[in-house]
C-alpha cells in the first residue's frame, strides 16, 4: 500500500472539520419554518436588493479605479503617486475593517460643503457602496495590475510609434488585452463587497429596509434570537458565493481554452 504522508493525514480531516463542517452546519440547520418566514419578510428582500445593487456599483467603481491604477503602473511607475497607491493596495489586508469603516465615517460622515445633512454621507446606500469599494478596490487593482504586468511592453511601444498617445495606447492595446482580468476583477470585487460587514455597518449603518445588507441582516437576526431566519439568509449567501465561484472558474476554463486555440 502507498504510504500516506503526514501532510495528507493533517490536511484531510482538518479541512473537513474547519471548513466543510461549518458550511454544512448552516445547511443542516435550515428549517421550512425559517425559510417561509424569511422569504415572507420584505426586509430580507430589501437586504438582498441592497446587497446586489451596492456590491455591483462598488465593483464597478473598483474596476474603474483599478484601471486608473494600472495606467500609472504602465506609464508612470516611477512616480510618487504610483508608489503611494501601490503601497496602499496592501494596507487593507492587515487593517481591521472596523477601522476602515471608522475612517470613512470620520472623513465623510459629516456635513461637508453644506449639501449633505449633519451626518454627511453616512448611513446612506452611497456610504455602503463606498465602504464596499474601500475594501474591494485593492483586490481589483492587484488583479488588473498583475495582468497588465504580463502585457508585452513592445506592443505599447509600437503603438506609440504608430501615433498613439499613452491614453490612446491604453485604450486601444492595454484595455482590450486586460479583458479577462477586468472581468475577474469585477467578480472578485463584487464577491468581496457582498461579504463585507464591518466597514459597511460602521459607515453605512444597519437600517433595516434602508442600508441593511445580507451580512448585517444575518447579524441582526442572530441578535434578535431569530436563528432560523439567520440560517436561511446565510444559506442564501452561500448560494450566491457558490454561483460567483463557479462563474470565476468557468471564466478561467474558457480563458484557458481560448488561449490554447489561439
Amino acid at each position: 500500500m502507498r504510504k500516506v504522508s503526514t501532510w495528507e493525514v493533517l490536511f484531510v480531516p482538518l479541512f473537513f472539520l474547519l471548513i466543510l463542517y461549518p458550511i454544512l452546519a448552516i445547511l443542516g440547520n435550515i428549517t421550512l419554518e425559517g425559510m417561509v418566514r424569511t422569504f415572507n419578510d420584505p426586509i430580507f428582500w430589501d437586504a438582498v436588493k441592497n446587497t446586489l445593487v451596492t456590491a455591483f456599483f462598488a465593483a464597478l467603481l473598483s474596476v474603474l479605479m483599478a484601471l486608473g491604477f494600472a495606467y500609472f503602473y504602465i506609464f508612470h511607475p516611477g512616480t510618487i503617486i504610483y508608489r503611494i497607491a501601490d503601497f496602499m493596495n496592501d494596507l487593507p489586508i492587515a487593517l481591521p475593517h472596523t477601522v476602515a469603516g471608522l475612517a470613512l465615517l470620520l472623513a465623510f460622515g459629516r456635513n461637508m460643503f453644506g449639501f449633505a445633512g449633519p451626518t454627511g454621507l453616512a448611513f446612506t446606500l452611497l456610504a455602503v457602496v463606498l465602504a464596499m469599494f474601500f475594501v474591494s478596490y485593492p483586490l481589483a487593482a492587484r488583479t488588473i495590475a498583475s495582468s497588465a504586468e504580463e502585457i508585452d511592453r513592445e506592443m505599447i511601444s509600437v503603438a506609440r510609434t504608430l501615433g498613439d498617445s499613452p491614453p490612446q495606447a491604453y485604450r486601444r492595446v492595454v484595455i482590450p488585452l486586460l479583458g479577462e482580468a477586468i472581468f475577474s476583477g469585477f467578480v472578485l470585487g463584487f464577491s468581496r463587497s457582498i461579504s463585507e460587514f464591518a466597514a459597511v455597518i460602521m459607515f453605512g449603518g444597519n437600517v433595516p429596509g434602508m442600508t441593511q445588507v445580507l451580512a448585517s441582516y444575518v447579524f441582526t437576526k442572530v441578535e434578535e434570537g431569530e436563528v432560523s431566519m439567520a440560517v436561511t439568509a446565510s444559506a442564501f449567501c452561500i448560494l450566491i458565493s457558490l454561483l460567483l465561484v463557479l462563474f470565476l472558474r468557468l471564466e478561467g476554463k474558457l480563458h484557458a481554452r481560448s488561449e490554447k486555440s489561439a
Partner: protein
Amino acid sequence: MLEAKNLHKSFGSHHVLKGVSLEVKPGEIQVLIGLNGSGKTTLQRILTGILEPDEGKVSIGGKDVTSSLPEDRLLGYVPQNTGLFRHLTVRDNILYSLKNGRGSEESFREAVELLDLESYLDWRPTQLSGGYKSRVALARALASSPRAMLLDEPISEVDRAKKEYVLPLFRQILLQLHIPVLYITHDPWEAGEIGTSYSIMRNGVVEGIASPEEAFSVIRQQARDSGE
C-alpha cells in the same frame, strides 16, 4: 537623414551607452552588429523616443527630435519580438496607424501587396509562423508611411531556409522606400544579405565598419576576450 549624437544612457550604475553617434542616410540600410547586452536595443528605444537619453541628441531629417514624443517622430519600428497586437487581426494590425492619421488606404494596400499578405488579412498574429509575423510587423510599420525605419532583429525567429527568401524581399522593399533604415542583427550572413553599410556597437559606442565580416571578426575577438 537619421542622426544620433553623443548619446549616453545608464541604468543605475550600469553605463550602457557611452557617447553613441551614428548617421543613416536615406536609401541606406545600416546594419548594427553587437554582442548580447551591448546596448543595441537601448539605442533603438532612444531613437524611437520610448526611452530618454541621459545626454545627447537625436535628429531626423535635420530636425532635432530629442525631446519629441514617440508618437510625433513618424518612425517605423519593428521590435525584437515583432510586438504584434495579439487582440487584432492582421488587417487591423496593419491599419493601426490610419486611425491616427498616419499612412493611407493606399499605403496599406501597397504594404499588403509587397509582403504578400492578402490571404492572411483575417488571421490572428498567434496563428502566423515566425516569417509571417515579421512580414506583418514590417507591413504595419510601412503602412504608416514612416520617415525612417528601425528594425531590431526582425527575423530572428525565422528559419534559415526561409530567411534566404525573406531577406531579399525585405531588402528590396526597404531600399525602395528611400528612407534611412537601421537594422539590428546577430547573424553575419543576414547582415551581409540585407545591409548597404555596417556598424558595430561595443564598449558603449558605435563605430562604422567596412564589411560584416570585419564586424564579426571584431566582436568574435571581443567575445573571446570577455570569456563567453
